[in-house]
């Protein structure tokens, strides 16, 4: 059946695209771009089809080489992985169209080929991480992801990108090796690498070797926490995300750290199970980390003068929101977290891409230089405003829905203190986003820029921005259609 082969075909399409880019070096670059777009389109169609299929027919289990799952490697496409691969495909397609507008800021022309190779390998590894049902296979995919994420930062040949990429790489590696030693401990206690089998034998192992399982979970949480920029481990993020080219920042901030948090969810709920988590009172630790992150991320963001650094710190705060939803360990909490992964993905992509356009044409990254920009670049600034209002949590945007859900989930678990933190964090968001919008639309510009610059903006850059703005509003007005898929994803993770 062809439908069973779709996950591996998705991965192979990305891989073959990456392999064929060097062969197209002598041809005009447009051919590569169009081919890449075709690949992304095919993958998008197949992931949407898979999403429909797993929600209506049943989950797909694919084993390599025709062996039983426990002997080989297994792919599982369930509502969880199908939903998030679709989201990644949408965001990646939008970012891809934007980046083809010849405005990948700071990347030399000779590096375009390599940039797209790395981009497709990055997408492949993220799809693989979501599909695979094997903790060691996850590790290998995570390593591909680590190298490619660092490489799409350091591809911009600037002084500061090298240092931030190096620091990011070191932190990433500490994370990977922590994850790997967690895998080793789990393998030692259970003897499996397949997630389903580990989940079945985990309760027995926990009875026998309690301390070791706790340590394994600790290593995995720390390892994935470093990679997902959970609060005390976030120190690499602002440097890395702000020095990267704009399209890379959008990918890193909107997609990559989310993928790590999804692995985190998989590890928490599938490798370990709810009983063990409750017994270890892991919920409290996660909630405290989330609360501190939500406040501190926003506070740091207020202090920034550089727009991209500000957005980076804002991501730290938003990861706190997602972690809050996960830390509640309840159906509502996980639903809110998954919805926020989607809505934050949309909003952060919109913010980074619109800022990227502003940086590309105005050559400034200072927050103070945004005065009067709303008249010069109405589209970029308009989308920026919609996304920023979404971040604040205004009604009619997707951010409002996720905050509403999160608040209800918090109340459901009687953790009123976190509702207060949520509101404080939203207010802090107002402090750093609103002045930018006000100064952009209400103040007069300090300097005179020629109006022609707007006309030069390629359509491939404007269209994705408008699409993102519309998506944010549409998701905010009609959340129920998407909630169906999210709820079935939550049910597949949390039985």
């Amino acid at each position, binding site marked *: 059946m062809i439908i069973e082969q779709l996950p591996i075909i998705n991965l192979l399409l990305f891989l073959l695209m990456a392999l064929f880019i060097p062969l197209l070096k002598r041809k005009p670059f447009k051919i590569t771009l169009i081919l890449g777009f075709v690949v992304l389109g095919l993958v998008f169609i197949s992931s949407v089809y898979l999403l429909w299929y797993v929600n209506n027919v049943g989950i797909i289990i694919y084993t390599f080489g025709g062996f039983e799952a426990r002997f080989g490697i297994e792919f599982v496409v369930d509502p969880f992985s199908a939903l998030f691969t679709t989201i990644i495909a949408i965001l990646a397609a939008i970012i891809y169209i934007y980046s083809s507008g010849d405005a990948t800021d700071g990347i030399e022309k000779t590096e375009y080929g390599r940039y797209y190779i790395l981009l497709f390998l990055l997408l492949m590894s993220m799809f693989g991480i979501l599909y695979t049902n094997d903790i*060691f296979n996850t590790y*290998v995919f995570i*390593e591909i992801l*680590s*190298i490619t994420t*660092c*490489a799409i930062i*350091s591809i911009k040949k600037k*002084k*500061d990108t*090298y*240092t931030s*990429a*190096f620091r990011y*790489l*070191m932190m990433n*590696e*500490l994370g990977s*090796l922590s994850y*790997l*030693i967690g895998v*080793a401990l789990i*393998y*030692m206690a259970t003897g499996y*690498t397949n997630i389903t089998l580990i989940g079945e034998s985990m309760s027995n192992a926990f009875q026998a070797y309690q301390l070791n399982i706790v340590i394994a979970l600790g290593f995995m949480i720390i390892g994935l926490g470093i990679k997902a920029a959970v609060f005390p481990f976030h120190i690499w993020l602002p440097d890395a995300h702000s020095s990267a080219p704009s399209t890379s920042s959008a990918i890193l901030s909107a997609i990559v750290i989310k993928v790590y948090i999804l692995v985190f969810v998989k590890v928490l709920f599938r490798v370990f199970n709810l009983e063990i988590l409750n017994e270890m009172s892991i919920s409290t630790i996660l909630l405290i980390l989330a609360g501190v992150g939500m406040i501190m991320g926003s506070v740091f963001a207020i202090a920034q003068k550089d727009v991209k650094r500000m957005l980076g710190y804002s991501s730290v705060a938003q990861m706190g929101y997602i972690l809050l939803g996960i830390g509640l360990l309840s159906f509502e909490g996980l639903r809110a977290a998954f919805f926020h992964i989607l809505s934050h993905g949309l909003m952060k992509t919109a913010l980074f891409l619109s800022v990227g356009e502003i940086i590309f044409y105005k050559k400034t990254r200072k927050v103070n230089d945004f005065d009067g920009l709303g008249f010069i670049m109405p589209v970029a600034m308009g989308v920026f405003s919609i996304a920023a209002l979404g971040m604040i949590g205004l009604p009619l945007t997707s951010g409002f829905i996720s905050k509403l859900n999160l608040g209800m989930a918090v109340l459901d678990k009687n953790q009123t203190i976190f509702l207060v933190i949520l509101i404080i964090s939203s207010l802090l968001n107002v402090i750093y986003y609103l002045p930018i919008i006000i100064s952009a639309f209400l103040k007069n510009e300090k300097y005179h820029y020629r109006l022609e610059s707007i006309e030069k903006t390629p359509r491939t850059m404007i269209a994705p921005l408008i699409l993102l703005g519309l998506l944010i509003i549409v998701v905010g007005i009609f959340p129920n259609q998407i909630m169906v898929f999210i709820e079935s994803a939550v049910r597949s993770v949390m039985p």
Partner: protein
Amino acid sequence: MDIVDKIIENINYLGAIALFVIGLRIVVLHSNLIKRIMGLNIMGTGVFLFFVSIGNVTGGVPPIIYPDSSGAVYINPIPSVLILTGIVVVVSITVYSLSLVIRIYENYETIDQKELSRLISEEANDH
């Protein structure tokens, strides 16, 4: 001497953990970038040693099956396979980070983390 016997019995695990911790210490505390990469390698080999010790069997033989060698006890082959993959991954990471070190040295004339942070903050103040 019970404890000494216990240590000798578990020497490979203890060595693996010791190497992991020493490597971690070098990565976190050392300011020289090349040393940090070496620390990463040491950490990696620590984890690999841990894995391989899981699969070890006293008196076992490597899992290569000849038709006439029935009755032998083989070691567990799975950890070795995972490690073969892991070694190559660590080499790739090492090379990439070394290339970054070359570029950092070219731009800042130093490979010392402390000096590097000082130079970067000075530059930020200049702007």
